[in-house]
């Protein structure tokens, strides 16, 4: 496919805008010197990924990203920053010094080259086709189809994930609360 043809398609224009936004904000997440700015840039990057899912016609995944990631996980991160008293202002101590940053940049760029060259070699000019008539209309996956798939074909992984969530819930409570016996001994210690 010729590049000028690629740019004249409106969906690719939208894709370019979303992609540039996503990469710029993701870059700020890993480089900014302000902790709260890093979290807010992550919000923008995740919103861009949700827009990308909408572009691909995966509406349920897109709104789940908005609800679970932007709604819940980001709030959790902000609480984590507050509780661990991370430096809130401009701070230079958030990243490792340059002698670690440069090899890390080389490693991650090499990783990108490896993944990218493999993908380009494997899929070349393959196009995401508009979906055929049937379960999917106009390339949009209906939420009902995703739900049927979860509760028929993937019901056992679904149950396993729900047990995992319960285990994570209990684990997080056990880890984060203060040990009651320790608290008691502290209280008696201060009284004496």
């Amino acid at each position, binding site marked *: 496919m010729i590049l000028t043809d*690629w740019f004249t398609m409106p969906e690719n224009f939208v*894709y370019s805008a979303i*992609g540039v936004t*996503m*990469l710029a904000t*993701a870059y700020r*997440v*890993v480089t900014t010197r302000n*902790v709260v700015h890093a979290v807010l840039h*992550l919000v923008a*990057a*995740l919103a861009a*990924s949700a827009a*990308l*899912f909408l*572009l*691909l*016609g*995966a509406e*349920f*995944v897109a709104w*789940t990203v908005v609800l679970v990631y932007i709604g819940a*996980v980001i709030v*959790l*991160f902000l609480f*984590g920053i507050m*509780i*661990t*008293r991370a430096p809130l202002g401009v701070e230079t101590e*958030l*990243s*490792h010094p340059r002698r*670690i*940053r440069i090899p*890390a*940049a080389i*490693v*991650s760029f090499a*990783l*990108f080259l490896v*993944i990218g060259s493999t993908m*380009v070699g494997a*899929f*070349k*000019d*393959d196009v*995401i*086709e508009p979906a055929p008539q049937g*379960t*999917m209309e106009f390339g949009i*996956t209906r939420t009902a*189809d*995703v739900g049927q798939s979860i509760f028929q*074909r993937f019901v056992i992984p679904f149950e396993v994930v729900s047990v995992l*969530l319960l*285990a*994570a*819930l209990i684990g*997080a409570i056990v*880890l984060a609360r203060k040990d009651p016996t320790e608290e008691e001994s502290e209280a008696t210690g201060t009284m004496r």
Partner: protein
Amino acid sequence: MLINQFLLLGAALFSLGVYGVLTRKNAVLVLLSVELMLAAVNINLVAFDRYFVDTEAAGQVFALFVITVAAAEVGIGLAIVLLIFRVRKSANVDEFDLMKL
């Protein structure tokens, strides 16, 4: 739409996440970079789902599972960071060297 444009964007996002994990000192920011990597994986899953025109929407279902597991991971990860912060009075990953000889 080419499939490769989504895969390359996912690869770039994943590499940025790897860079963040390798360079960040603060444990909360390391977890933040891990979230970037998981978002990249989700993009790949949904793009392949559309590419193979799967009637069972398996890629999207697995993207939903990844989102769930990521939420659990953030909860546990932040609880561990909180616990270490209470004991060591610091959230810097290079100060967690209790098991070093």
